[in-house]
């Protein structure tokens, strides 16, 4: 070993977002491919031959409201109107629940503003019996599956109508029936569970597939790696979704992503094919999701899909993003608003109109308000019918062991 004092000192790189509050958002350097530009490989394409797809952005809707390119055409106008309604419903629902939280009717809330297309469109590629392992920001999966808004609200209010007995933080829904796995507060844990669930389906020679969900920031967690290792090894029938909404609370995506250009690229380390998609383009999300789901169903194994989107609101009701990013950043975001984009397209092809849209908005507002009334008639976090404290001791185990019986008695029940 030799001495190396002649060396220049090292220095630590700490990635920074381009702008901070006070600065002018500028996304001009973000390369956004044209709609229709990215090719659509065969379903059974060798991952090694489609590396480019992890670095582009699959887009279907162009700026003029046309659906173009090889990924277009996966949905009928009827289905697209459904999709529009789902996204509008989710946005209206979010808005009401946000207000309800501000009114003290619950403790906490998390919105999807700007990201509605991702979960709403993806749900439509699944079959009954398939299972999502979502994060807290995919309630669109439930909305698009037709899960009752009242039940969602009862969960948010932790009232007596909550099927999880008020045990979970608001927005931590669960619905086996609707292919929505119980949400965990511990980031990323669900990702590897989804792989196990998919492995089970394959072990049982079943036909069900799983969809794993994770945020950009959470890909840094260990569970993400384990999920890719196991999915890659056992060729599990699972779609490995990554929702890159640019932010993890106050931390921009560059901290989790590091030196790779994209999150989709993570798949390449495992020989897993990876797509990168415009997450604000309902048609693109659906087309890419369908492609990946089809791979899983044909026993071709996992696919990584990165949805490029933007978290337009705060991380949660506990967060104020103006502390770490310019207020105008959301508007400057180049991929636009998913609802406006789909609406524009439907109008362009003569399947929708401004009038119908206004009417739909009113109908949806009405539906949401009625659901809210129904839910609040049961109760909110602080008033009305709430789960009994007695319930607190149930479901720790299938059968209550003596020490919990004793504690329940001590608690007075």
């Amino acid at each position, binding site marked *: 070993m030799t001495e190396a004092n002649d060396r220049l000192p090292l220095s630590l790189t700490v990635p920074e977002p381009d702008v901070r509050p006070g600065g002018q958002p500028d996304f001009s350097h973000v390369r956004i491919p044209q709609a229709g530009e990215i090719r659509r490989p065969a379903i059974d394409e060798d991952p090694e031959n489609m590396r480019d797809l992890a670095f582009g952005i699959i887009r279907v809707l162009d700026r003029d409201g046309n659906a173009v390119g090889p990924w277009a055409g996966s949905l009928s106008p009827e289905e697209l109107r459904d999709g529009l309604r789902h996204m509008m419903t989710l946005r209206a629902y979010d808005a009401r629940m946000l207000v309800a939280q501000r009114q003290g009717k619950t403790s906490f809330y998390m919105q999807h503003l700007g990201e509605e297309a991702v979960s709403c469109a993806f749900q439509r590629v699944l079959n009954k019996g398939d*299972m999502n*392992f979502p994060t807290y920001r995919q309630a669109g999966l439930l909305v698009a599956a037709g899960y009752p808004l009242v039940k969602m609200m009862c969960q948010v209010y932790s009232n007596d109508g909550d*099927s*999880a*007995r008020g*045990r*979970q933080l608001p927005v*931590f829904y*669960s*619905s*086996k029936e609707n292919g929505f*796995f*119980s949400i*965990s*507060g*511990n980031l990323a*844990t669900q990702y*590897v*569970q*989804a*792989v*196990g*669930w*998919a*492995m*089970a*389906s*394959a*072990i*049982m020679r079943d036909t069900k597939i*799983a969809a794993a969900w994770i945020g950009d920031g959470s890909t840094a967690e*260990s*569970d993400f*790696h*384990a*999920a890719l*290792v*196991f999915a890659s*090894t056992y060729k599990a029938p699972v779609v490995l979704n990554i929702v890159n909404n640019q932010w993890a609370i106050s931390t921009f995506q560059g901290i989790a992503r590091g030196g790779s250009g994209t999150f989709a690229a993570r798949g390449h380390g495992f020989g897993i094919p990876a797509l990168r998609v415009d997450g604000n383009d309902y048609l693109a999300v659906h087309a890419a999701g369908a492609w990946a789901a089809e791979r899983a169903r044909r026993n071709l194994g996992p696919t990584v899909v990165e949805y490029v989107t933007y978290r337009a609101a705060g991380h949660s009701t506990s967060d104020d993003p103006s502390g770490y990013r310019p207020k105008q950043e959301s508007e400057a975001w180049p991929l636009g608003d998913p609802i406006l984009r789909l609406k524009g397209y439907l109008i362009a092809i003569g399947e929708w109109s401004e009038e119908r849209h206004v009417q739909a908005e009113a109908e949806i507002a009405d539906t949401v308000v009625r659901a809210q009334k129904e839910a609040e008639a049961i109760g909110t976090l602080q008033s009305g019918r709430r789960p009994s404290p007695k319930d607190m001791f*149930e*479901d*720790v*185990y*299938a059968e209550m*062991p*003596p*020490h919990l019986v004793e504690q329940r008695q001590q608690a007075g029940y």
Partner: protein
Amino acid sequence: MIEAIQNAHDLAMGADERVVVMGQDVGYFGGVFRCTAGLQKKYGKTRCFDAPISELGIVGTAIGMAAYGLRPCVEIQFADYMYPGYDQIVSEAARLRYRSAGEFTCPLVIRMPTGGGIYGAQTHSQSPEALFTHVAGLKTVIPSNPADAKGLLLAAIEDPDPVIFLEPKRLYNGPFDGHHDRPVVPWKKHEAGEVSPDYYTVPLGKAATRREGSDLTILSYGTMVHVALAAVEELGVDAEVIDLRTLIPLDKPAIVESVRKTGRCLIVHEATLTSGYGAELAAVVQRECFYHLEAPIERVAGWDTPYPHAGEWDYFPGPNRVAAAIKAVMEA
């Protein structure tokens, strides 16, 4: 004990196609301790297979499988290596039923060899049971002989909730009374070494009294049951020795009845003393038997240090330390 565990797997897999076995080296090779030998050959490689070296992945995928409806029984190669999977155990397996109010459940068994006595040093000797007993939603089981190991493992696999199944590795090949310098006794020379070939279960939550006595009660589990029995015989004291078998749920009635009878209590485990499961036992016993206790409850446990290699037998709470503690309890 290895054969008993292997046999429990075999019977469970034969009886229920939802039982799948996964872990490092458990497939073709049959496990570094051979507890899964022959299973892959018999049941096929999608029911018993090697996992990547990721305890997180093993537990995490097993949770997904359990939620699907399978009954995974997975092996962690040494209990010392469960920590990478601890988040999935604590935050996920233990809570899934609760947080979904029973909509999703996790019938999962996580087996792991535990304890020292094989010169495994600090990373092949740990007894982390207290890290499980503190977690609501988990059951924790630790057998002390082949017959129990089989029956408890079958009960654990049948159980609708996650069960941590600790296997005292020093007992794999025979009972061990802590006299490491004496010849190894194989199980076939021990009465509890006889294992019925049938499918049977030993219920979770029930302790076994290994020796009746009236002078004091010794609470123990796993390897230390044998050490305690040896110390008792050597001292000639009339101790009641209770083998807990299941730590959670705890068989409190059996413990309380015994200590109320004897008026004295010694707790023996191999895990480090501070915040070990013995603390919980002491807290329970002093509360439930306060007016019957004639002496302070003593604990004999591993020292509050990592498990050293060269000093293995200085660390291991052998019969001499147990005997000294018995005397202390009797003379107090």
